[in-house]
């Protein structure tokens, strides 16, 4: 493991925010930390980059124990949610900032910065003031500023949450590209599962300071380990016995003699969500938009596949 976290515990006065977390990240992979607001995601990042001291446990990076090092001594950089670009420096100066602390000639630093600008597709903005950039451009510079020092590990704390939907999609894509190009190891914090699925090699689901499950997106979805993960990841129809049915695992067909009745229809574009009443229960159903939408009140035939929770 490239990054190894062992029994990490963090308390604020008496309240334990992180409960003995252990996990690892392989080199050149992205680990996404996913969880509801207040579950301790940012706190976990602060333990990794060293802005807060941990109460128990250890953090190992590339085989070296860095638990006690100050942030500036760790080979880790962070992209903050607020970007935190230096307002009194222009784009170039912001990007170059971290290189000041590497033993590197000014000329080399410049070259490297220009290359980074190119990678970020922002060549023409070298001398622009930070205030004159759009939100997405600022985000890119913040990312570039952290990447340029070639850290062993890059941390990102909800970096795209200030962007609009469309831009967020683009940025996810770009981030993956850049990550591949530079062979970067990353820990990415978000509370948006779509983002987690599209970015993460592995996803760590956390709640109340505890790891609920670490798996690929696929794994989390198809084999949730517990109720929290099940409820948190995707939609599901819970059955009384603890089993569940995913909305896409229900197939409905127009049938005047069917046992189900459409109660609500929600047109989503590529998909259509229905609420159906079946056996006195209400089920969520998701269908591809392949046929004429079914009207409310239509009777339907219902086929489904039950999944079991692999909880022990």
């Amino acid at each position, binding site marked *: 493991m490239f990054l190894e976290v062992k029994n990490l515990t963090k308390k604020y006065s008496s309240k334990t925010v992180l409960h003995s977390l252990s996990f690892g990240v392989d080199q050149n992979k992205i680990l996404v930390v996913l969880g509801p607001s207040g579950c301790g995601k940012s706190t976990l990042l602060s333990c990794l980059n060293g802005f807060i001291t941990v109460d128990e446990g250890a953090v190992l990076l590339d085989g070296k124990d860095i638990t006690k090092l100050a942030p500036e001594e760790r080979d880790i*950089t962070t992209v903050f949610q607020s970007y*935190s*670009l230096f307002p009194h420096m222009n784009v170039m100066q912001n990007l170059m900032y971290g290189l000041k602390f590497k033993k590197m000639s000014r000329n080399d630093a410049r070259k490297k910065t220009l290359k980074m600008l190119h990678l970020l597709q922002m060549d023409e903005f070298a001398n622009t003031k*930070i205030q004159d950039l759009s939100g997405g451009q600022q985000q890119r510079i913040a990312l570039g500023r952290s990447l340029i020092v070639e850290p062993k590990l890059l941390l990102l704390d909800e970096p795209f949450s200030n962007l609009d939907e469309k831009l967020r999609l683009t940025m996810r894509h770009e981030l993956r590209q850049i990550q591949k190009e530079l062979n970067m190891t990353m820990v990415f914090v978000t509370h948006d599962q779509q983002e987690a699925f599209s970015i993460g090699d592995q996803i760590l689901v956390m709640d109340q300071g505890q790891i609920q499950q670490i798996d690929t997106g696929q794994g989390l979805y198809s084999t949730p380990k517990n109720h929290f993960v099940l409820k948190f990841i995707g939609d599901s129809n819970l059955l009384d016995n603890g089993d569940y049915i995913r909305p896409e695992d229900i197939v409905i067909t127009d049938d005047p003699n069917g046992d189900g009745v459409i109660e609500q229809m929600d047109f989503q574009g590529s998909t259509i969500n229905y609420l159906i009443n079946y056996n006195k229960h209400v089920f969520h159903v998701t269908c591809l938009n392949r046929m004429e939408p079914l009207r409310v009140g239509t009777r339907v035939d219902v086929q489904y596949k039950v999944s079991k929770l692999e909880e022990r």
Partner: protein
Amino acid sequence: MGKNHLGSKITNWFVYIVISLSILLFIFYPYLSIFVQALHEPGETFNNFFMQNIDLTKNSLFVAIITMVLSVFLAVSVTLCFVFISKKWQSILRVFLLITMVSPPFVTSLAYITLFGRRGMITHDLLQMTIDPYGPQGIILMQTLSFASLNALVLIGLLKQLEPSLINSARSLGARTDAVIKDIILPLLKPGLIVVALISFIRSLADFQTPTIIGGSFKMLASEGYFAVISMGDIHKAALINLTLAIPALIGFFLYIKYDREMSVQHHGLSSNMKAFPLPKKGFFFVGSVILSVIFYLALLLQYGSIVMNAFSVKVMGNYRFSLQPIIDSQIYLNDTITRTILYSLVAGLLGSLISFLIIYYSKVRNDRFMKFIEMVGTFPYILPGTFFGLGYLYAFSKPPLIMTGTSIIVIINVIFKQVAFATKAAKASVSQIEPTYFKTVHDLGGTVVNEWKDVFFPMTKQGFAITFLNGFISTMTTIGSIIFLVHPGQNMMTLVMFDVVQRGEYQVAAVIACMIILICLVMSGIVFGLISLSGKDWGYVFRSKKSH
């Protein structure tokens, strides 16, 4: 509806005209008069005077420049030290700095002579030296000490803009404490540095008290100007001297306008909440700033300790004994002066702020060209020495068309309009936090100008208004130069009494008065901040939402 609009239009014009005229009349006209007096009245010509007294100018500039550099340097150290200390200490030290804004130079000077004088406890008794403390070195040291407080408060106010995440960012990129300070914090302070440098420069030029106490044979423009009036009754010479002072001050002023724009928030450091910063306590800047700050605070402590000691003791055969005698003695000097001073300060604070906010309403919200000019005229009293303003009043309002000297009104008007300079700055900072769309919304929904004031402008700036008021109150409580030539019997103010008793060597009484002034200012600060925190908590969030770039 139509009627309502007409009424509001009339109110609007009435306010606009009254404000413009009052600024022209009570700021522009006095300055104009004194300029005319200096240049056109019979007597020595300006050129002649200037050439013959070039040494005075040189001395003043010499002291002003060195004082400026040192007091800014000291203020920066104190500000940097703030970055390292906890919120609790930040609050404590800020109150302390606030207290020391009320800085009667006699205390510093007295303590200085006792310690470093020719028979000083340190220089003579301890080190067996006989050093002459009188001269430029004494003036510079005293001024540096007393200006550093205000400078530091202004700079500390700027720290509010410093986001801890910015520091974290830099650190995560590998910046150590020194680099963070050099690359992030100092650049953030830069516009403030220029502003406080100019304030110190101008204050030093205008300070006529310190040189009279500690200057020895070293002569400077401001004190000579004061003596020209006091000992020779030579108003013309005083006008010439003040004109000479005005030249560097005006040059400073234009630099100031240039840089002031960059500094959006400037509240004399009176802003409320502080925060702790995630910066490791190490490195050159940390050590340096802590050492200098400790020395600075010790010096202040010594200074204010000696005020309190003087206020509560008498000297018998060279030894101090606890006594309430000074407080009893001070009564005959004060009588109704305390109430009057508080009353004047209240009026000056309130009306000064009101006028300033209305000026800013027109100049900033309405973008009115003429009002921008009025706003600039309003900053003159900030730039030019206080005595100059006072002389202008004395000269302008002692002859037709408007004779007002000898009345209380002239003193009140003087202190009100002296506030405008600073109050407009604070008003601007406060108004810049209101989104312009609010004003449009008012009109959209059928409101008038008066509605803009009562529904948006004043309610949304009330916190800024309160702080501006407090500023005006404190500075009126401590003002001397601009009213010293204006008061007549029955109009005296506490600072003037203090200045007077210092002149006659009644330091104990002076110390009592200084304590009272400090106490009154503190109580008023407490009231204002109490009100703000009671009513204003919810406002913070509304304003913050605008912060995005």
